[in-house]
């Protein structure tokens, strides 16, 4: 029997529910932290909702391999781009804006993010 996708526990890592401690020097911030909000990139500081997909943030959250898999699935699902169709060796993994997507598409993307 196929296993049901498990939901990832909310607030597992720092920067999703609250800003991280300010190191006082923006060059010391991890690449996945937004320098203005001190939250994980793509997470709105007020609502804690994800408004953009950033590959570095996904790597922090899910690890390198799963992050890339999820990024590619989301990119295709949202009609952003299909990374599998870009030239070999090309590194084009732009941030993906979740604003303005159809509700059904957004739900699919949320499901991809919640899958373990």
């Amino acid at each position, binding site marked *: 029997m196929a296993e049901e996708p498990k939901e990832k526990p909310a607030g597992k890592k720092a920067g999703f529910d609250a800003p991280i401690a300010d190191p006082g020097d923006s060059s010391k911030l991890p690449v996945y932290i*937004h320098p*203005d*909000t001190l*939250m994980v*990139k*793509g*997470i*709105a*500081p007020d609502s804690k909702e994800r*408004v*953009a997909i*950033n590959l570095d*943030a996904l790597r922090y959250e899910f690890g390198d391999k799963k992050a890339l898999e999820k990024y590619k699935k989301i990119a*295709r699902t*949202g*009609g*952003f*781009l*299909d990374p599998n*169709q870009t030239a070999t*060796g*090309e*590194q*084009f993994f*732009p*941030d*993906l*804006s*979740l*604003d*303005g*997507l*159809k509700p059904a*598409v957004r739900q699919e993307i949320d499901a991809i993010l919640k899958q373990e």
Partner: protein
Amino acid sequence: MAGTAKSYNTSMVELGPGDVWLNVATPGAGARVTIHTDGTPESVANPSAKHLGMTTEGARLIYSPQVQNFTSDEQTAPIISQIGDEELRIEGTSLQILDTALMTYLIAGSTFGSGSGYEQNTVGGKQTLATFSVLYVAPIFADTTKFLVVSIYKAYNAAGWNTPVSRKAMSGVPFNFFGLSISSRAAGDQLGNVWKTVAA
């Protein structure tokens, strides 16, 4: 029978300046880049956006279709025309040449590096081309709470790095952000978009 109304409308006239942004978030199918009320890319929705800074004379926004005309021996004018190639570009000259992080975008094929006491761009021997999105935003002249926006989803600087250095003039780096097709997006929306905000 009445005549037809003319459309002399200054609210449809644009007069700059505007701003160029790099590496904004790619919008999904049918969507647009999220713009803040001040006309900048919304910060959380565009976490990697980079401002190009000052330019010498603003920017030139260019869409050029190369139309192929087909003729018949029996007609004097083309009977079929279609777009064979198309280009979407944003051109200008950047003044902030000492911003090494910015130069990483402008010098195609370069790699940014930094350490104790230096920042650098190295070039040579890299075959892959770094690509990024480009966004132009300008307040509309007649209503500065609204914006004219041009977006290229994927581009590189085709102008190279060609910088005069002189005592009598400021140095600048030309940019020709040349749009590449994202073939996996829907036909008609593979290069970018031109839009403006209007009253909701």
